[in-house]
């Protein structure tokens, strides 16, 4: 038997962190996604142990200040893209207010570290979510365009084509065929 899975990465990460750190007997609190506060000072030896355990799960402790800021910007964008509520302010204003820093500054740091712009990263995330919804839900493209705050389905299609070089339906066709093929191999 074969089933398809959908993941909530934030939930998974939180659960792993809670389980592993409780096992080791640490007192801590998780402040939002991607921020962790220990209630005590951690000796270097224990800190390395935590780092190693985290790394096994692909969780990395970010040490560089710019990387921390970039991670916060990414988290804000991912949260923004994944929310069901319609956005009534510009994303640049939203991100700047949320992080309490000027947008030009955030924009500069982001491009320097990630080699892409905040605007482009937002589009990448939106297209990723569109792909997920296309594959894992019964939503049609019009419904997906509404959920992702596009002004029209044509706008979503154009952006999809611009980012991936193919139309949403060509993408869907390939993924469907791929799954059929892997089912055939595995059965």
């Amino acid at each position, binding site marked *: 038997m074969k089933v398809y899975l959908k993941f909530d990465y934030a939930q998974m990460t939180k659960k792993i962190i809670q389980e592993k750190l409780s096992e080791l007997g640490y007192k801590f609190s998780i402040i939002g996604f991607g921020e962790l506060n220990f209630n005590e000072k951690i000796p270097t030896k224990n800190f390395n142990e935590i780092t190693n355990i985290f790394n096994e799960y692909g969780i990395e402790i970010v040490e560089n200040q710019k990387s921390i800021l970039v991670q916060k910007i990414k988290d804000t964008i991912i949260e923004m893209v994944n929310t069901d509520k319609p956005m009534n302010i510009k994303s640049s204003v939203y991100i700047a207010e949320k992080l309490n820093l000027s947008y030009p500054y955030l924009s500069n740091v982001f491009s320097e570290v990630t080699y892409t712009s905040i605007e482009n990263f937002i589009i*990448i995330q939106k297209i990723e979510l569109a792909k997920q919804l296309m594959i894992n839900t019964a939503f049609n493209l019009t419904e997906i365009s509404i959920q992702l705050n596009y002004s029209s389905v044509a706008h979503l299609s154009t952006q999809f084509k611009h980012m991936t070089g193919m139309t949403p339906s060509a993408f869907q066709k390939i993924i469907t065929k791929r799954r059929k093929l892997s089912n055939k191999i595995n059965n």
Partner: protein
Amino acid sequence: MTADYITICLADDDEDDRLFFTDAFDELRINTRVKTFKDGVELMNYLNHADSILPNVLFLDLNMPKKNGVECLLEIKKNVKFNDIAIAIYSTSSTEEHIEETFVNGANIYIKKPNDFENLKKILSEVVTINWQYHTSGLNKDNFLMRM
């Protein structure tokens, strides 16, 4: 997990093309480490060797002697050890059916070889930049399809 460079492998039997590619990578903003191979057999020997550093992205020419690009692709896709490698196929010309087939067989990127160096640089820069986002932002690689 997040190194500050991206490792790239390239298999192409044409020496000039190999040179164009490595020159183009050298001029990118993202730091790259590039290894090149002159045919599919040489490439697969390297990948299958236990000590080899597996690439983040692999560029495969379709027409190569001994073992062609599609044969390499199928072999790589059969081995779970290579799951994390993004595969970019490139070729001078191809039919729609053929392009679709390579995607279905597991390619992530399909590039039609451009005629001039400036375009090649632009395309490779886009591919490596987007791959960098997949690499550093936990995007789902199974949904990574791109046509240039």
